[in-house]
């Protein structure tokens, strides 16, 4: 079974360093000449889009992690009327397949009032379309759902006496969030952040319908254009995929370490 998963990776690596002629001649044979120049070409072609994607994903993740931990805290600790109803609606959001709301979502961002030349009825301009906001706002709003649920559950399961103790120590509700709840939530937040980063970075559909300015293109948009622009050589295309995965690998390496660090915190002396 593992082979089934690993084979495409190996294929991608092979394809990224072999010329098209060689690939057609014998698919699995080791390359006669490793074409490092493919990587150089690929880099030139996609580096700006990788930067776009990485920045979009990072900014979204930082904000959604912050917002979901704060909302999770509010849902867990603060009583207000209609709380459970609102929470139920948030839960329901998670159940709706994104593809169902794609068109309404698109129209909503396009016709957002007073944005991008729109009047108060959302007419006359392009709204959020073709701006970085269409990605950031969408990802932050959408990605929060899982984060809110996980953070709320986690904070609710912390012992009540922890919060009582902090209140007696003199902490305000905001200080309790910052000094107690937020640090204790970090493992949860790390998990949500990694999942969100990967999801945002890999998203194809949303940027496809909302972005066409070349300087705003995300990695997923850009990389699919390669074959239409360069018909003969496929090597650089596959090299692009590999280069494009590097940010994900970095996030995993860093995030996982943080995650493991989070759960074993305090058990280590010093």
């Amino acid at each position, binding site marked *: 079974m593992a082979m089934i998963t690993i084979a495409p990776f190996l294929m991608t690596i092979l394809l990224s360093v072999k010329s098209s002629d060689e690939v057609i001649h014998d698919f699995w044979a080791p390359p006669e000449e490793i074409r490092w120049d493919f990587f150089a070409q690929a880099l030139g072609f996609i580096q700006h889009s990788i930067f776009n994607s990485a920045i979009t994903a990072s900014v979204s993740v930082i904000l959604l992690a912050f917002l979901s931990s704060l909302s999770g805290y509010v849902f867990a600790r603060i009583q207000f009327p209609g709380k459970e109803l609102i929470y139920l609606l948030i839960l329901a959001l998670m159940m709706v397949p994104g593809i169902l709301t794609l068109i309404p979502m698109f129209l909503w961002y396009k016709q957002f009032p007073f944005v991008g030349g729109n009047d108060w009825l959302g007419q006359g301009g392009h709204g959020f379309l073709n701006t970085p906001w269409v990605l950031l706002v969408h990802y932050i709003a959408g990605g929060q759902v899982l984060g809110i649920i996980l953070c709320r559950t986690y904070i609710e399961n912390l*012992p009540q*006496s*922890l919060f*009582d*103790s*902090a*209140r*007696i*120590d*003199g*902490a305000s509700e905001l*200080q309790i969030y910052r*000094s*107690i709840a937020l*640090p*204790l939530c970090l493992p949860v937040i790390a998990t949500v952040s990694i999942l969100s980063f990967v999801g945002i970075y890999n998203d194809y559909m949303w940027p496809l319908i909302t972005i066409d300015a070349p300087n705003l293109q995300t990695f997923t948009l850009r990389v699919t254009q390669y074959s239409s622009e360069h018909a003969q050589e496929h090597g650089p295309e596959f090299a692009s995929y590999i280069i494009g995965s590097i940010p994900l690998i970095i996030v995993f390496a860093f995030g996982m370490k943080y995650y493991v660090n989070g759960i074993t*915190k*305090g*058990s*280590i*002396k*010093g």
Partner: protein
Amino acid sequence: MSEVTLSNLSKTYPAAGKNPAFQAVKGIDLQIRDREFMVLVGPSGCGKSTTLRMIAGLEEITDGTIAIGETVVNNTLPKDRDIAMVFQNYALYPHMTVYDNMAFGLKLRKYKKDEIKARVGEAASMLGLQDMLDRKPKALSGGQRQRVAVGRAIVRKPKVFLFDEPLSNLDAKMRVSTRAEISKLHKSLDATMIYVTHDQVEAMTMGDRICIMNAGEIMQVDTPLAVYNEPANLFVAGFIGSPPMNLLYGTVAKSGDQLVFQENDGQTAGIQVPLDARLSRLAQKRIGSEIVFGIRPEHIKMLSSPQAAPAASIPAIVDNSEPMGSETFLYLLTGSHKLVARIPPTGRFEPDTATQLAFETEKAHLFDPQSQERITE
């Protein structure tokens, strides 16, 4: 001055979902004196924690008032009540070091760094925590965590300390030693302490006074010995003491010109206990009415041989015995009651054998089963 005064204090938890509203504390009055060690004791669910949490300001007061010193604090925030609380599960902040746990409250109160360092250092050396200041709570034993929780309370030098069953997560041996340490701490800190426990041994050994609670009401408030020797009612008599006081239900009867306690209304085979002059005086007006005769296990004596038995001896059957080492608890059956006697460890009694007892009636008590109160002159 930091006495704590509870006046007509009530707490009703509002109905939530399927649970109806519930009155956990029913209008209690209690005066805790300056620098007193007051223990609130009672069975689980009797409202001890609720009372303590209201004093701390963690629970809203439904009715009545709480004053600390001269000030009514009903609407004062917990942080402004000049109290500190130690919780059963210690409630240490898991992501902070021992030092930061103790310093947290001081930092929030904007103390100077040097002052914080001095206070934490002082508390740490008082509690033997100097070498653990850099550790996280997870790297500490239960006893050490408990000390950190106490340390966190004392660095603030509050007027009133509140403890909610702080020893119940410790093993038996740690509990005994920590008990003594908290008592010592009380003397050296010279502060008012209110201590909640369900363990009557803790209550007896630690309290200047004990407040015994049951079902949201106060049953008795007095010194440990007074509570033991003069229980105000049947509940206290049955709660304080281990094993507790034997309580026999029966009637006051007249036998010749003497008053006796007759077990079981005289219906089934019951024992008769002649009442001495003091008890007779108490029972005089109750001839023919129901009464409860209370006698502590240590006030029951075994008579060595039936022949040697005086007229006042009481027959019983040995049920079983529990040797404790320094003493033995002997369980005995009379007419319809099971009694326990505390006898020297040398006493050997086979189950199911008949034996003779003597009650030290000068130490016995009479209770009114209707009002549940102890009958006094």
